């Protein structure tokens, strides 16, 4: 038991390698937890967001005290959990008289708190309260569409920050190939005022239109809520610069089998698989087709002609 964790099994080794920093990152995981006091509304919000993000989220069921994300010392528990669960996004819910139905959405960089947005939940409608055709229900893990409405998302820094955080939270994995049959839900966020955002989750109904592009229809499936921005802490400038650094496109794949010769130019080897000539069936084994017999017949045929002529001459 040293200061380093190493794995004894191959599977354990793979698990550790998943958590190592990579050049191109895969999806972020979310940690959903709550503080000492929560309300029923907040509990519902947390569980429903967890269900929306089932595969890529971890939910803690016990209450956690001593978490104050906006205070200097109150982030240590969050950072420890982030390290333990390898989650870079967290959703912390708490309820107090001063801040009712409070939800703190935060991101971490290198398991240190990167930025925070504190939001109050109002007018929450759970998924169960929506009535819709069950066939439209979106499948778990499908990539959602994101729609943001309102100029406030550009002009007001609080809303701009919230837009970025919501995008990070709900966008899912960044994929190269998308199956068009699998697009079935969308998140719609509207800026109602400089502090309020209306957030809802809708299923998509694709209708046949004349062209390749189907006609889209949104059907609310929930949950829907109003988010009121209370506080937000933007990231530290130097940390932000470091976090926004991205690798230059894709790492250059080494071109295999190509050699550049100064005399011959670009050369490569052509590898042919074993043709197994000995085991191949000959195309036609019939007697009449064999070359020798054919040739013999030809010669014999010419002799016959000669003999026939001779016979004619004779007769």
């Amino acid at each position, binding site marked *: 038991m040293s200061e380093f964790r190493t794995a004894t099994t191959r599977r354990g080794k793979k698990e550790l390698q998943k958590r*190592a920093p990579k050049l191109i990152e895969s999806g972020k995981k979310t940690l959903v937890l709550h503080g000492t006091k929560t309300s029923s509304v907040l509990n519902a919000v947390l569980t429903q967001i967890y269900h929306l993000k089932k595969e890529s989220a971890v939910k803690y069921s016990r209450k956690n005290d001593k978490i104050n994300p906006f205070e200097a010392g109150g982030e240590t528990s969050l950072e420890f959990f982030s390290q333990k669960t390898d989650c870079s996004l967290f959703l912390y819910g708490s309820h107090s008289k001063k801040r009712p139905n409070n939800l703190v959405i935060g991101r971490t*960089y290198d398991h240190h708190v990167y930025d925070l947005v504190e939001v109050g939940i109002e007018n929450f409608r759970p998924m169960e309260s929506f009535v819709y055709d069950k066939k439209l229900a979106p499948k778990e893990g499908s990539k959602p*569409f994101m729609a943001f*409405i309102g100029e406030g998302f550009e002009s007001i820094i609080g809303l701009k920050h919230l837009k970025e955080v919501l995008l990070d939270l709900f966008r899912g994995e960044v994929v190269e190939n998308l199956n*068009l049959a699998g697009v079935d839900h969308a998140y719609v966020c509207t800026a109602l005022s400089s502090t309020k955002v209306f957030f*809802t989750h809708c299923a998509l109904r694709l209708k046949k239109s004349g062209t390749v592009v189907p006609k889209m*229809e949104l059907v609310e499936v929930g949950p829907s809520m109003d988010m009121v921005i209370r506080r937000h802490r933007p990231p530290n400038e130097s940390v*932000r610069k470091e976090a926004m650094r991205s690798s230059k496109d894709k790492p250059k794949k080494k071109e295999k089998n190509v050699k550049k010769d100064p005399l011959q130019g670009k050369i490569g080897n052509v590898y042919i698989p074993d043709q197994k000539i000995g085991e191949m069936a000959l195309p036609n084994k019939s007697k009449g087709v064999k070359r020798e017999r054919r040739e013999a017949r030809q010669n014999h045929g010419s002799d016959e002609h000669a003999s026939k002529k001779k016979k004619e001459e004779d007769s």
Partner: protein
Amino acid sequence: MEIEGEKMFEVDLGNLMAYDSHSTVSSQQSREKLVKECLEKGTELVQAIADSLFTLPSTEDIDGPLVKLPPPTTKLPREKHMPRPRPPTKWEEFAKKKGIINRKKDKIVFDEQSETWKRRHGYDRANDEEAIPIIEAKPTDDPDEDPFAKRRENKKGRVDKQEKNRVQNLRNAAKFGDLPSHVQLAATSLPITGTQAVQKKVTKDELGNVAGIASTATASGGKFDKKLPGEKPLKHKGKFRKFPPVAPAADGKATGPTEREQAEKILNKILSKNNHDILNVKKAVTVTNVKKEKNRRSDKSKSSTTNSKLKPQKKPFKKGGSAKKGNPKTQ
């Protein structure tokens, strides 16, 4: 779909995101109307994304048409740092220096003792030190010494040394670069300090000094207390005053502020505090005049027609402000 008027959305196809910066939804209407309006606007945005999405070149797959999405345009922060290169281990450095090349070894080696081919590592391995049943005694050997035990001890020593080196290499890697991907820091050595950076580790000397200083914080000045192990006595016992050198050092290097400079500094501070002259009027006037001349000259060269009044006002009191500092509320 027709784009009416100036309705252009910012579409980020890699993220399947669309942003409408022109519409506003009024919050004064009833809840149902508000929701309906939001859904309508949302439908427009989603339609815009779908337009560009379904027109991408698609390949047929078993489940449905596959499209290749472009990379997302909105940049989001990473969750972990970029992988840093691992510093070379002590062996790697040595090998590089000596030019030692790592050659692949055979799995089966010829065992001299049994004169058969055995595996290199594992059960019943070739050239195993511990498998030798008889060790011939040399005349120089000590009769009480157990050579088998000695061999085992040596091996244990070698294994421990290797383990120590391995841990040292990992510590080095963690400090100056990244750990190898299959190794992680254990929970006890995690640098969790909230938003602060990793705290500097206090050295043994520093601790000793601090312990010495703290030990004097008793009624009797720490004279009659038992000294703790590692506690260092105070460097300067009793009253301590540091005097700067009167003359500059013999080697001509900078020795810090001289006594004269120190006294001057204090004097200036006191005098400026009680100085009622807010402004060195002469100096301020010349400074502003020079600035005006400069601006006039640059304006003439640029031949700009804008009135200087329309230009952003530069703070004219900047120079005077530093002198003003010496006089906090004049009352």
